[in-house]
C-alpha cells in the first residue's frame, strides 16, 4: 500500500447550509484506483468538488497532501462556441504551471504532445475540438488532465453518452493509465459495471448513505440495495464481477 494522500474523517458535504451526505470517512493512497459510484443525484459531484477543494465541507476534517489534480469534467459541460483546436484545449492543462505572464515553453509543447500520444489522438492535435466525436473529446479532456502531470487523475462520468465500442475503449485507456503510468485514479460513475471490474477500491454513495473500502468488502448485494434502493445479484465468475438486477425480465 502506498502513502496516504487524501483522508476524509467524518466529513459532511453539501451546498450552503444544506447537507447532502454526512459522516464520510475514507482514504486514498498513492497508486490507488478508486471507483465512486451512486445513483444520479446522490452527491458524487458534490463529493468530487469537496475533494478538489472547490467546495467547502460543512463538517469534519479533510487532510490532503499538496497534490496536483488532473481533472476530467463531464464532457457535456465543455461545449465551446469558439473553434479551439485539440492542442489549444490540452495546452490549458499547462496554464496553472506557467508563470502568470509566461507563454507556453518548448517543454510545455513536448508535454502536451506526449499527453496526446498517451491517449492515442496525437494525429488530431490540429483538429477543431467541436468537430470531434464524443470519445475523441473525452480523450482530449483526459490528455489535458495528463498535461498537468497530476498526482491523481479524477474522471467525472467519462463514459456518459458514449456508444459501446468507445465506452470500452475509454475504460481500457483509464486502466492502462493506472497500470502503466502508475497513476492514482478516482473514477466517478453512475454505472456500476463501469467500475466493478477495473477498480481496487469502491465508494458507494447515496443521500445519507456512504460505504468505502476494497471492492471485495463493499461490492455486496446488501450494500447495493441500500445505495440504489433496488435489488441486485452480484456474482464473481473467472475473476469478473457480473452484476444484474433482480427485477430484470
Amino acid at each position, binding site marked *: 500500500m502506498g502513502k496516504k494522500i487524501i483522508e476524509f474523517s467524518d466529513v459532511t458535504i453539501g451546498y450552503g447550509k444544506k447537507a447532502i451526505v454526512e459522516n464520510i470517512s475514507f482514504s486514498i493512497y498513492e497508486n490507488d484506483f478508486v471507483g465512486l459510484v451512486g445513483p444520479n443525484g446522490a452527491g458524487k459531484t458534490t463529493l468530487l468538488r469537496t475533494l478538489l477543494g472547490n467546495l467547502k465541507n460543512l463538517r469534519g476534517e479533510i487532510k490532503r497532501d499538496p497534490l496536483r489534480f488532473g481533472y*476530467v*469534467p463531464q464532457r457535456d*459541460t465543455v461545449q*465551446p462556441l469558439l*473553434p479551439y483546436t485539440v492542442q489549444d484545449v490540452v495546452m*490549458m492543462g499547462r496554464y496553472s504551471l506557467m508563470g502568470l505572464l509566461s507563454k507556453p515553453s518548448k517543454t510545455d509543447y513536448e508535454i502536451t504532445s506526449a499527453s496526446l500520444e498517451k491517449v492515442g489522438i496525437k494525429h488530431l492535435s490540429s483538429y477543431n475540438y467541436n468537430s470531434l466525436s464524443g470519445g475523441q473529446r473525452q480523450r482530449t479532456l483526459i490528455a489535458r488532465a495528463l498535461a498537468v502531470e497530476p498526482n491523481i487523475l479524477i474522471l467525472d462520468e467519462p463514459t456518459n453518452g458514449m456508444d459501446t465500442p468507445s465506452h470500452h475503449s475509454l475504460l481500457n485507456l483509464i486502466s492502462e493509465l493506472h497500470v502503466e503510468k502508475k497513476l492514482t485514479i478516482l473514477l466517478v460513475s453512475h454505472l456500476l459495471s463501469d467500475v466493478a471490474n477495473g477498480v481496487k477500491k469502491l465508494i458507494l454513495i447515496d443521500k445519507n448513505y456512504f460505504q468505502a473500502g476494497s471492492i471485495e468488502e463493499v461490492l455486496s448485494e446488501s450494500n447495493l440495495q441500500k445505495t440504489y434502493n433496488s435489488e441486485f445479484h452480484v456474482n464473481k465468475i473467472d475473476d469478473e464481477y457480473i452484476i444484474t438486477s433482480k427485477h430484470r425480465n
Partner: protein
Amino acid sequence: METINQLIQLFPYAVLGSILAGMICGFLGTFVVSQRVVFLGATLTQVAVAGVAFSFLHAINLEGILTSLLGIKDHSIAHNFEPVFYSLLFAVIVVLIFSQTYKQKILTQDGILGIIFVVAVALRIMFIQKSPIAEVSEVESILKGDILFIGQSQFYTLLGIFIFTLGMFTVFQKQLKFVTFDAESASAHGINSRFWLLIFYIVVGMGISLTTRFVGDVFTFAYLIIPSSIGILLSKKVWQVFLIAVVVGAIIPPISIFLAFKYDFSSGPAAVVTAFILFLLVYLYRKIRGN
C-alpha cells in the same frame, strides 16, 4: 467623395470614435457570445443607461467634490464625469453580483439577468421622472448616447478603454481563456476561477457601460453580438474569430455613418442595420457553402 470630406470635417471624432466603439464591442462580444451570456450584454447596456439616468438626480454632488478635490477648473470635465462614473458603478455592481452566480443552482443565470434587466429599465424611468431636466425626450437623447456626438474627450476615453481591454486580455490571456472555456476544470487545476471570472466580468462590464454611454445601448448591444457572430461563422481558428469581429466592428460603423449622413438616417440604427445586412450575407454564404 464630397460627403465623405464633409463628414470628416464636421465629425472627425465621431468617425474615429465609432471605429473604436465597434472594435471594443466586437472584441468583448466574442467573449460574451462564446460564454453564452448574450443577455448579459443587453442587461449591462440597460444598467449603464440607468446609471446615467441616476446621475441626473445629483444625489451626491460628485461634480463639486471632483472640482474641489482635484482642483479641476474646467467644469465640463467634472460635469461629464458624473454620468460616466455612475454608469460604470452600476455596471460593476451588476457584474460583481453576476460573477458570483455561476455556481448557484437555485436560479438560472438568464433568470437573474432578466430580473436585473427589467429593474434597470424601471429605475431608468423612475430616475428620469425625478430628474430636474424638464424635457423627458432631452434626457432620453442624452441617456442613449449618439455616435455623432462623440467629441475629443469621448474619443480619448474610448481609446483608453480599447487599450485597457486589449491589454487585460493579452496579458492575462491564459487565465481568462481557461476560465471562460471551462471554469470548473480551471479551478481543479489550480487557477482561481472565481477571481479570474470576476476580472473578466469587470473588464466586460466597464467596456460595455462606457461604450453605451458614448454610442448608445442599441449600437453597443448590436456590435457585441453581430461582429462576433460573423467571426464565428467565418473562422476555423480562435484568433480569426477575434480578428474578424474587430475588423467588422471597425469597418461597418464609419460606412454606416456615411450612409446615414447621405440618406438622412440616425447613425446608430443605420450602423445596426448595416451590420445585420452583412451578417445575413455571411450567414447565407455559410448555408450555401454548407456547414
